[in-house]
């Protein structure tokens, strides 16, 4: 067949005219324009949403937290999330697509630039994405005013493990998806610019699927996404998890603040040695006289103003009450700290513990004494649970739950199809990635929690994972497999895993 014959054959081929009236075409174009705007907006929102959530949560922490190192961590995390958002948006803004009427060469250049930028982003994901968030959250957690070392160490290890996982995932995506496309574009561009033959190793060679042109019309796959409820199980749990850790953080933080207030009583300024000695001598005298029951002698240690405020009768009643309730003082620790003119001691009695605050005047007589039961740590732990699940905190559960549902719904709407089933075979999420029915020699299940996926195994042993029970519309999925797969195909055996409708 010569050139003219080919041209004639080409131009005279029967064509299927799309049945659209001019009005329908115009309407379709207007709809697509609107859809394009919405898609671009949705993409920006989706990418920025995670950064906004992180920024808001840690922003709240920054303002309510009093521990300076934790605040610094919150600040680093907020700054990190802003930086990440900026980095993603900047990468997109600097790689605009070619104009619609660009030449092939111009378009290839624009696409190559875009793919290289994305590839570079994934390659360097550790420093611009993982590092700021990791440093921020670790500084935050280690700076929190609670001394649960196990929690902090476990949190650090989990965070680092997650970083390694995310890094590997990104490098895998880069090497499997972006680098081949980059090589393909480079090869096409080089060929277009130099006229040299294309390096075919970079171009995907379609498998020779022999189909009649009419039969090809029937291979549009029936497409299935991952079901909403399946995403919601994890999406809602994740968002509610954020709420849970947020309220724990807030409660512990408040607890820490209160502890710190008490810490003014227990761990404040240090005393000079001679000061400590003065107060220890006075405390020893008080303790010894108290244990002997000589409350009048204790009262004689008081300075004039103290004697006036606490005369002998009142002092005797007070010390008798203490002795009745707590028994003798077996030993005392201190001084354990100082707050202004008050110096603190811890008294270990026969029936409990007391704190004693002493103030001495210049003559070493007692100008003030306060004895109180020491705060019980076990009582604090018991009180923590009601504080965590206070009604104010529980009220926040509802919006977090709803946001979890909304997030799952958005994710389901905006993500691509997971599986397509057609006369040809199984189309996986990669669009043109078709595994022909005949190529699937064996099928095995993979169970992770409540989800069962399937390994599609070829004769050479190559395994490809396919979502299965997590897919939506099980009745249609069954019908598609029963209708399209050969009768003896191993996939039929796994239809029973799908819900009975």
């Amino acid at each position: 067949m010569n050139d003219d014959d080919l041209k004639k054959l080409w131009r005279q081929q029967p064509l299927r005219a799309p049945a659209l009236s001019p009005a329908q075409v115009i309407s379709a174009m207007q709809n697509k324009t609107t859809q394009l705007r919405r898609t671009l907006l949705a993409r920006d929102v989706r990418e920025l949403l995670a950064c906004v959530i992180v920024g808001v949560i840690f922003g709240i922490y920054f303002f309510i937290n009093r521990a300076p190192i934790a605040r610094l961590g919150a600040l680093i995390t907020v700054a990190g999330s802003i930086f990440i958002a900026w980095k993603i948006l900047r990468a997109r803004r600097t790689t605009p697509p070619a104009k619609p009427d660009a030449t092939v060469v111009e378009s290839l250049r624009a696409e190559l630039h875009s793919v290289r930028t994305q590839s570079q982003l994934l390659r360097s994901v550790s420093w611009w994405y993982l590092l700021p968030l990791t440093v921020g959250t670790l500084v935050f957690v280690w700076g929190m005013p609670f001394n649960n070392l196990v929690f902090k160490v476990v949190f650090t290890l989990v965070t680092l493990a997650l970083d390694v996982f995310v890094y590997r995932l990104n490098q895998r995506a880069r090497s499997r998806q972006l680098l081949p496309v980059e090589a393909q574009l480079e090869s096409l561009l080089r060929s277009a610019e130099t006229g040299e033959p294309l390096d075919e190793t970079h171009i995907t060679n379609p498998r020779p699927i022999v189909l009649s042109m009419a039969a090809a019309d029937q291979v549009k796959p029936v497409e299935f996404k991952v079901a909403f409820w399946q995403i919601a199980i994890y999406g809602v749990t994740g968002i509610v998890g954020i709420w849970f850790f947020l309220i724990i953080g807030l409660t512990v933080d408040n607890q820490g603040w209160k502890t710190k207030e008490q810490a003014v009583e227990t761990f404040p300024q240090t005393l000079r040695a001679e000061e400590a000695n003065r107060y220890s001598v006075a405390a020893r005298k008080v303790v010894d006289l108290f244990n002997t029951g000589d409350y009048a002698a204790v009262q004689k240690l008081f300075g004039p103003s103290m004697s006036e405020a606490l005369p002998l009768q009142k002092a005797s009643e007070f010390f008798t009450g203490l002795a009745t309730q707590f028994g003798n003082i077996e030993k005392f620790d201190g001084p354990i700290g100082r707050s202004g003119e008050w110096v603190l001691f811890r008294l270990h009695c026969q029936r409990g513990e007391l704190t004693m605050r002493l103030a001495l005047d210049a003559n070493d007589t007692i100008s003030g004494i306060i004895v109180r039961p020491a705060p019980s740590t076990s009582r604090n732990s018991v009180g923590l649970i009601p504080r965590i699940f206070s009604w104010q905190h529980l009220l926040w559960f509802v919006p977090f739950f709803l946001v979890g549902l909304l997030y799952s719904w958005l994710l389901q709407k905006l993500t691509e199809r997971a599986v397509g089933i057609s006369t040809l075979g199984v189309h996986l999420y990669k669009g043109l990635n078709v595994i022909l029915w005949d190529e699937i020699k064996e099928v095995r299940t993979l169970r992770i929690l409540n989800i069962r996926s399937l390994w599609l195994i070829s004769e050479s042993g190559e395994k490809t994972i396919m979502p299965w029970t997590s897919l939506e519309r099980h009745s249609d999925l069954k019908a598609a497999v029963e209708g399209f797969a050969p009768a003896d195909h191993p996939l039929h055996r796994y239809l029973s895993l799908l819900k009975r409708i």
Partner: protein
Amino acid sequence: MNSTSADEQKFLELVNENRNRILRVCRAYLWNSADQDDLYQEILFQIWRGLPGLKEKQFANTWVYRVAINTAISFVRKRASSSDRVVQFEHADLTRTIESRQATEENTDDRVANLYNAIYKLNPLEKALVALFLEDLTYEQIAEATGISANNVGVMLHRAKRRLSCLMTEAPK
């Protein structure tokens, strides 16, 4: 007539004049008619978007080829990772599709099928050059449409035609 309806009129005229050319380009890049429809609509959309950039009407046909080829190459590559091609099948559609699965008619012209089977095996640039050559464009017009220099068009097209010829000869009868 306001400017919007004038633009719409211009667009419709351009599409009507070039409908068959666009359809042939779609068919050169995708063998599935549903995908061809998607590509056809995408090319129309790119023409719609790019129409304000078309200044001289005498170059309109070459301009349309440029948009069509460029869109087709990008479309085929992006389809590999596209996220907007989910088609919701209602149960009735699904049943109908399955029922009609075996009831397909064979193509009446095996020579056209043979030509397309060979074209599908060419690389994207060769496809573009061959499609434009079969549309009877000169080397200069092909160069204008693709951005490849006229000399390179000659060299590459010669190679592509030779390959096409081999593929058509090898194809099973």
